[in-house]
């Protein structure tokens, strides 16, 4: 029984700045906090007064990793507000883009940010020397994911060709065929990487805490681009009711807000999506889930890492299907005209870290007068806090550095995108 | 060569498809891109648009690519350079006559003296199927430029006549291609008549007209001060679009791009344009053609006066690409030449290009440096070092006084440096002032280190013309460096010259170069040597025993017969005006004054365009000029 004083300032291997604080005297916990000191980004302030065709370009800058997701959420909200319809080709290409984003983000997270913990090192850099083959495979899968983004929307970070109503440029059929082949060839490497994670998955603590899981759900597919809000507690809700689901509130030790729904917190992200959509996985997705013994509903937040591996494999298969569909119907550059109309639109989209909402009000001149965004990581902060509070007492007897690592791994498991989550909301246009 | 052939449309399609599917070469032709056209790979005959009006970029991109690796280098091994040649064997279908004409113009430059072997390889491996113009671009004035039909420069020439296609054979290679993949029969006289009719109908389709090319040089000579230069250049965005899309533009820049692990890299060539502000920038930061009006004007003079005077053709084929590309609408040569022809003219001022005697021919691949080793390094001042260099081949450089070399440090770049030793021996000397990246790197090198050398380049001092005459050297600052190669040459052949006077001035004593040489010159009875500094600080006054004052102040200290004296003037740009003025006042005739000028020398052989002084290539006709030849060039002194 001893004293524990953990003050982990700016957790490493996560996006953005967060602190873990744990103080205990003689085994009694006095303070256990997940703090977010990140500076406010103030994005909803920016979009005020901006024309509709620039909104997605601005909001994509909220995040460098989920730019595609933010762009798509923004476009969907704008299109909903102005009553703009998109073609089937546009929808297919957008789905391809969102899968590309998921692939890139998950392999980066599992391969570069989490694997070091599983293999007992500080970063991926030493792994270059000790596990060169595995690292090269991870790098290759990461590269292919980025090539898919480049192909579908110009760039992973801050996509170029996504537009209100359509695409400014589309890939050729030849390029799509080549991409499909790369994806097909990537399956063995994917399974190998899954195998490496499996071999080291024992390092992931066996910690569970019942909580609510929220994500997009759809009748026909494992929902990423479109769907209703699904909850493991309350079932389906239309996206328009997002405010009733999220219920944001402020806590003193966080510049990012917290959310709650049925319980005191809920979780979003790969594990939440898995818990809600597992039956919609493709055969290879199900195969990888089975490999890890992952079954819904899984209440271990560390399993979010495993759910990401499952989603990675699944996204490859789904992407191949989407490309097949596109090749079947042929790909053409489509002309699209947008009629400016006043209105309010709300969208829900799954980005790698969870469900994202954009809510815009646009006036008759096509100018945005009000905007609200709810970021997945915002929705996870409270869950992280409560997880820490439940986990800490069970490990308080361990050596301090082990407690530190376990808590860090907990935060990392969520794959938080902290700088996105500190960007604010509910700005009313005067 | 056989006469005209004829095919049906279907047979033509079949020919193209067969060519695409069976020939190993890449087949390219005009394809649609949005509402425009571009030359690109054809995957089927359906994609070929012989009815296109004009493409965004001319097919020059296949002969002088937008980006090309010239050589690869190995940074780990001091001198492991391999010239590379990016050649993709091709068949181009659908080149219009104006683009053929432009390509033939480009041949004069790249296949004339100093052959560009990369260009030649691509030229030799490309088969050209030209096509008569079917749709006229609204921006084109090719009819006025005599470039809407062409009789040579193609392997095959096709004319679409409704449901038939006439094919004119232009070479044996064309003949073979036609026989191999096509099914053509001899055409009747009638067909020739139809082809002629199509061509004769073209001029009336051109709403845009221009003064005929044979008038351009004259017009430009008479309108140097026309208000249009100011008026138009104010609107210029300096975006470079006009030069990028032009089929007769070919200026390029060269840069070293190294890999992230600094193990290797490539020296890459890419298109450049004289409209861009930094086109004439040198290491010291000076930009020789900085004013946008001068750059705007230069493009037209180059196309309408300088290039025709050099190669015989006005470098414009009226394709109209620049007219489309220019957002402020000021690039249109037809509009501009029209304006000039309608304005009252001034006295004609032609900017002539001096005909220099043939310089040392450059052999082999112009672009790849040869290895050389630094034999010794001597610090002369805070900023200048003297390097003794030996070519690894053991051969002498073979330069004449006044020439320069291009010194390469792979990964960093290349810089032009004057040779400051007299010819002879298997080493040569360079004095290098530290002004930019290459010279800075060079200053950090030591004996045994390797550099790359290209050259020698340029037109040097005409030592023959100086024989029997007095020689008056007037050197300012770094100007002593190239002058020294001549000074030492003259001293080696002292008996062949009359009086020898060496005047050398620099800013202050700490910048004085070649102290030992100077002392030797001072000691000789048969040389008059006077030195000066612009200013001298108190603390240096004791050690300095030369004059104090600008170089012009020591000129009166020598007396000579001006008609019998050759004045060699080398120094910073600002010096020339004043020294030459004083020489003229002393009665020295214009063609007795030799100057050595500096510009941004890059390729060294008059192709990349950076060293242009109006129509003169300083690397080719210079750096040494007779004042008479350049005194009327606005950009010279």
């Amino acid at each position, binding site marked *: 029984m001893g004293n524990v004083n953990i003050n982990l300032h700016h957790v490493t291997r996560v*996006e953005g700045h967060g602190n873990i604080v744990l103080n205990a005297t003689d085994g009694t916990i006095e303070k256990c906090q997940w703090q977010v000191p990140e500076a406010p980004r103030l994005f909803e302030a920016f979009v005020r007064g901006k024309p509709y065709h620039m909104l997605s370009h601005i909001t994509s800058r909220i995040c460098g990793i989920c730019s595609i997701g933010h762009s798509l959420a923004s476009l969907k909200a704008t299109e909903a507000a102005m009553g703009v319809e998109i073609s089937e080709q546009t929808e297919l290409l957008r789905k391809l883009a969102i899968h590309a984003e998921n692939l890139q983000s998950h392999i980066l997270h599992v391969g570069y940010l989490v694997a070091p913990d599983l293999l007992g090192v500080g970063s991926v850099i030493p792994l270059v020397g000790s596990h060169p083959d595995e690292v090269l495979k991870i790098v290759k899968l990461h590269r292919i994911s980025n090539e898919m983004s480049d192909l579908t929307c110009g760039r*992973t970070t801050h996509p170029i060709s996504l537009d209100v109503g359509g695409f400014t440029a589309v890939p050729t059929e030849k390029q799509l065929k080549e991409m499909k082949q790369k994806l097909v060839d990537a399956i063995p490497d994917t399974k190998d990487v899954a195998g490496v994670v499996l071999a080291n998955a024992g390092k992931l603590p066996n910690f569970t805490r019942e909580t609510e899981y929220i994500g997009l759900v759809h009748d026909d597919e494992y929902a990423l681009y479109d769907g209703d809000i699904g909850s493991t507690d309350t079932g389906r809700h239309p996206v328009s009711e997002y405010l009733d689901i999220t219920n944001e509130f*402020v806590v003193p030790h966080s510049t990012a807000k917290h959310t709650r729904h049925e319980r005191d917190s809920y979780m979003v992200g790969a594990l939440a999506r898995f818990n809600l959509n597992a039956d919609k996985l493709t055969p290879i997705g199900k195969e990888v889930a089975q490999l890890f013994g992952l079954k819904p509903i899984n209440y271990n937040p560390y399993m979010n890492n495993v759910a990401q591996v499952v989603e990675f494999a699944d996204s490859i298969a789904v992407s191949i299907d989407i490309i097949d569909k596109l090749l079947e119907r042929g790909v053409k550059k489509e002309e699209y005209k947008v009629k400016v109309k006043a209105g309010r639109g709300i969208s829900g989209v799954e980005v790698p870290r969870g469900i994202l909402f954009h809510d815009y009000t646009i006036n008759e001149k096509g100018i945005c007068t009000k905007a609200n965004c709810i970021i997945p990581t915002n929705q996870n902060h409270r869950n992280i806090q409560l997880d820490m509070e439940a986990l800490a007492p069970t490990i308080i007897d361990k050596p301090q550095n082990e407690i530190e690592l376990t808590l860090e791994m907990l935060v990392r498991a969520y794959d938080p995108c902290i700088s996105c989550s500190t960007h604010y909301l509910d700005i009313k246009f005067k | 060569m056989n006469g005209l052939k004829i095919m049906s449309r279907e047979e033509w399609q079949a020919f193209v498809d067969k060519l695409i599917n069976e020939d190993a070469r890449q087949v390219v032709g005009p394809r649609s891109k*949005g509402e425009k056209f571009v030359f690109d790979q054809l995957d089927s005959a359906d994609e070929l648009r012989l009815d296109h009006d004009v493409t965004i970029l001319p097919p020059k991109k296949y002969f002088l690519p937008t980006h090309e690796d010239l050589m690869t280098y190995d940074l780990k091994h001091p001198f492991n350079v391999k010239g590379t040649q990016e050649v993709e064997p091709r068949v181009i279908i659908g080149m219009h006559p104006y683009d053929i004409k432009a390509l033939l113009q480009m041949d004069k430059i790249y296949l004339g003296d100093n052959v560009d072997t990369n260009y030649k390889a691509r030229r030799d491996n490309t088969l050209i199927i030209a096509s008569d113009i079917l749709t006229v671009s609204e921006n084109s004035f090719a009819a006025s430029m005599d470039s809407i039909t062409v009789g040579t420069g193609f392997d095959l020439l096709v004319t679409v006549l409704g449901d038939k296609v006439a094919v004119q054979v232009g070479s044996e290679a064309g003949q073979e291609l036609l026989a191999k993949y096509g099914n053509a029969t001899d055409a009747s006289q009638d067909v020739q008549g139809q082809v002629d009719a199509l061509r004769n109908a073209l001029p009336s389709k051109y709403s845009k007209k221009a003064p005929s090319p044979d008038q351009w040089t004259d017009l430009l000579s008479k309108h140097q001060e026309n208000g249009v230069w100011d008026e138009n250049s104010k609107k210029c965005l300096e975006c470079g679009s006009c030069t990028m899309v032009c089929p007769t533009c070919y200026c390029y820049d060269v840069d070293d791009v190294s890999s992230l692990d600094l193990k290797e890299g490539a020296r890459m060539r890419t298109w450049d344009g004289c409209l861009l502000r930094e086109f004439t920038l040198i290491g010291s930061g000076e930009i020789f053609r900085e004013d946008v009006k001068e750059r705007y004007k230069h493009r037209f003079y180059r196309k309408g006066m300088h290039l025709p005077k050099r190669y015989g053709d006005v470098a414009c084929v009226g394709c109209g690409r620049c007219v489309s*590309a220019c957002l402020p609408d000021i690039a249109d040569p037809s509009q501009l030449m029209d304006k000039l022809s309608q304005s009252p003219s001034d006295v004609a001022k032609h900017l002539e290009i001096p005909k220099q005697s043939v310089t040392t021919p450059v052999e082999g691949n112009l672009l790849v440096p040869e290895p050389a080793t630094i034999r010794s390094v001597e610090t002369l001042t805070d900023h200048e070092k003297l390097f003794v260099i030996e070519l690894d081949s053991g051969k002498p450089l073979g330069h004449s006084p006044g020439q320069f070399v291009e010194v390469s440090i792979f990964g960093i770049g290349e810089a032009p440096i004057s040779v400051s030793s007299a010819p002879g021996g298997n080493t040569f000397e360079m004095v290098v002032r530290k002004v930019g990246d290459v010279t800075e790197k060079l200053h950090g090198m030591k004996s045994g280190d390797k550099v790359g050398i290209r050259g020698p380049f340029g037109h040097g001092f005409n030592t023959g013309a100086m024989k029997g005459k007095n020689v008056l050297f007037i050197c300012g600052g770094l100007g002593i460096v190239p002058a020294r190669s001549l000074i030492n040459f003259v001293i080696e052949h002292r008996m062949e010259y009359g009086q020898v006077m060496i005047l050398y001035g620099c800013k202050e004593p700490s910048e004085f170069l070649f102290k030992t040489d100077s002392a030797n010159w001072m000691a000789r009875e048969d040389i008059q040597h006077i030195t000066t500094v612009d200013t001298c600080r108190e603390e240096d006054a004791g050690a300095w025993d030369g004059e104090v004052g600008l170089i012009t102040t020591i000129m009166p200290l020598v007396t000579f017969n001006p008609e019998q004296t050759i004045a060699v003037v080398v120094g910073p740009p600002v010096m020339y005006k004043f020294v030459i003025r004083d020489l003229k006042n002393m009665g020295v005739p214009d063609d007795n004054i030799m100057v050595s000028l500096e510009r941004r020398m890059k390729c060294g052989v008059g192709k990349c365009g950076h060293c242009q002084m109006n129509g003169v290539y300083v690397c080719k006709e210079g750096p040494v000029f007779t004042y008479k030849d350049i005194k009327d060039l606005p950009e010279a002194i």
Partner: protein
Amino acid sequence: MKPRVAFFDFGCCEGCQLQIANLEEDILKLLDIVEVVSFREVMKEHSDEYDIAFIEGSIERPMDEEALKEIRENAKILVALGACACIGGVNKLRGEWSVEEVRKEVYEIADPKDIEGNPYFDLLPNAKAADEVVKVDAYIPGCPIDRAEFGRVVTSVALGKTPKLPRYPICVECKKNENVCLFEQGKFCLGPITRAGCNSACPNHNSPCEGCRGYLDEPRLEAAKDVIEKYGFTLEEMLKAFNMFNFKKEGY
């Protein structure tokens, strides 16, 4: 001894640092020539002893200014990575409103005692680029950075060559890539006054340039005005609509 490199991020989306990860196999080449001693997003280890510091993000608060000044003291060479660090980027858009207005809007529902005097919430009047606080030795512009340009600048710094950014507009690259001009498609493009170096990324996809790399040192705004008016707009109108990256409260 390999130069030691550290990455720091301020007010940003971390997209530029992600481009380093996106070097893919080339990361191994980079690791050949430098030793990464601090890169919070990717590694646990940290050291205050570094030769080259890469800064991503804008400076939003006084506490960030202090942090950047300290980094400047530790580093021999400081490189601004990305639009936010080079020119302020999108973060400067908040300059349209005063700090009070913004704080009132954003923290209306928060407990005042958590905000008052709390350095985390102490915003500067507007976001600052890195060189508005310290001297910057090299710039890698763009939103996000272009990986080839990153390579050019980093190899230049490593070879002792002055990293040179193009001083001509996007149009040069756009024409080399044979794009159909955005103006000809009826769109407004900032290409003619924006610094090249990204290989005309956005126009390559038929999307107009938004000036994320910053304007040229001497953009020809007067000339651009005429061009815009020809298309029926005023330059001010268009710049205002497209000032995502080059926001100026006083106008142009």
